[in-house]
């Protein structure tokens, strides 16, 4: 092995290193991760039991990666491997098989036709195509989108903690009034396990959250100084919905063929609004919205007569959870000084 630097060369020798460059043929039941990542790592046994994950994006950026946290995760993976298979039951929360995965991407019914044929050039199945395939299957079945297919792989922030990126398991901050704060989490606590599964990284944390029901109590074991404590973090309601998902490459299919952006105070006032409203940033001419007549700069003030949310994430979630593909909707827009209705079918 060539020199890896940063102290990772030696520990790298303790693993069988493999790189998977595209999703064709990949069993997504095993390799279940946040498919909008640009880089993701898995630590596994040869029987494909997942020991842990590494790799997290926030708002489209890569601020959540660090060499030190990766090395820490690799160290923990080696310890898990040494104790395997006696510790296998504790790994169950890291090996949950999502009901909407479990297929190779090219076998998903709604995946693009070109991806099914390996002989067509330039048909590499990217990671984010997996989310697209899952969501398109849902849309083809005329079903509303559940929270965990919109706000995928929630960050620990959604329950009130941020994790130290350089460490991967230490709580950097706890937001007041959140489920984590109510359970007694403190900055400096080191997360050892969640629901009994050892935590290696923010990605591990996200996997547990992704696979949690909308209402649950997470048993979070933390190290606080010399003490070990178990915190019961109760989550319920709309806890997933704090995040913005519009940075995700995979969310293109959720759009109506246009990108939107929040209004500033002046734009809102000019549109005659006190709250809500959202601006069309661009409408692709040959997309559903463009064909229906939307233009960049239009301010959407109502949908079927109801005020619209002021964030694109909330707007798209509303569309995908309350309306089904093929359903006709009427959007009221302000263009210049003129108000008009534009009707279109939900794509």
């Amino acid at each position, binding site marked *: *092995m*060539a*020199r*890896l*630097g*940063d102290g*990772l060369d030696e520990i*790298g020798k*303790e*693993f*069988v*290193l*493999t*790189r*998977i*460059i*595209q999703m064709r043929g*990949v069993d997504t039941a095993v*390799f279940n*991760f946040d498919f*909008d*990542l*640009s*880089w*993701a*790592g*898995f*630590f*596994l*046994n*040869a029987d*494909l039991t997942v*020991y842990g994950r590494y*790799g997290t994006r926030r708002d489209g*950026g*890569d*601020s959540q*990666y*660090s*060499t030190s946290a*990766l090395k820490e995760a*690799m160290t923990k*993976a*080696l310890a*898990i*491997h040494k104790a395997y298979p006696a510790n296998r039951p504790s790994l169950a929360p890291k090996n949950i098989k999502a009901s909407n995965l479990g297929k190779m991407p090219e076998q998903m019914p709604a995946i693009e036709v070109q991806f099914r044929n390996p002989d067509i050039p330039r048909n590499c199945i*990217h*990671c*984010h195509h997996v989310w697209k395939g899952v969501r398109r299957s849902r849309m083809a079945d005329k079903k509303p989108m559940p929270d965990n297919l919109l706000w995928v792989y929630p960050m620990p922030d959604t329950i009130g903690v941020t994790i130290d990126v350089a460490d991967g398991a230490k709580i950097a901050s706890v937001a007041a009034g959140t489920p984590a704060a109510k359970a007694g989490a403190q900055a400096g606590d080191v997360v050892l396990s969640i629901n009994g599964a050892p935590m290696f990284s923010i990605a591990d944390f996200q996997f547990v959250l992704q696979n949690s029901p909308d209402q649950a109590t997470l048993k979070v074991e933390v190290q606080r100084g010399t003490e070990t404590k178990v915190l019961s973090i109760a989550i319920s309601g709309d806890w997933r919905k704090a995040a913005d998902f519009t940075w995700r*490459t995979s969310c293109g299919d959720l759009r109506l063929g246009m990108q939107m952006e929040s209004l500033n105070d002046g734009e809102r006032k000019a549109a005659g609004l006190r709250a809500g409203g959202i601006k069309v940033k661009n409408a692709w001419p040959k997309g559903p919205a463009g064909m229906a007549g939307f233009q960049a700069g239009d301010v959407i003030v109502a949908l079927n007569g109801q005020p619209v949310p002021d964030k694109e994430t909330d707007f798209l979630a509303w569309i995908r959870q309350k309306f089904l593909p093929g359903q006709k909707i009427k959007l009221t827009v302000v263009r210049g000084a003129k108000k008009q209705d534009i009707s279109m079918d939900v794509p």
Partner: protein
Amino acid sequence: MQRSRLFASTALAALLATFAASRLPAGDTPAEKRDKINDNTEINPSWIYDDLPSAIAKARRENKPIFAVFR
């Protein structure tokens, strides 16, 4: 897979530049191998490239965990 501009500028990118190398089918020239992995990293024979069954077999043989990188 998506490419990351920011990530490439981090220390971890140095790791990846070497980690990203893989064991490729015999006969591929270094240029062909680089083209297959769609980047300019050096090819490193310590890595198994796009061949999970081989990685599994090696992990069993050597009693090592697998580190699988998606990029």
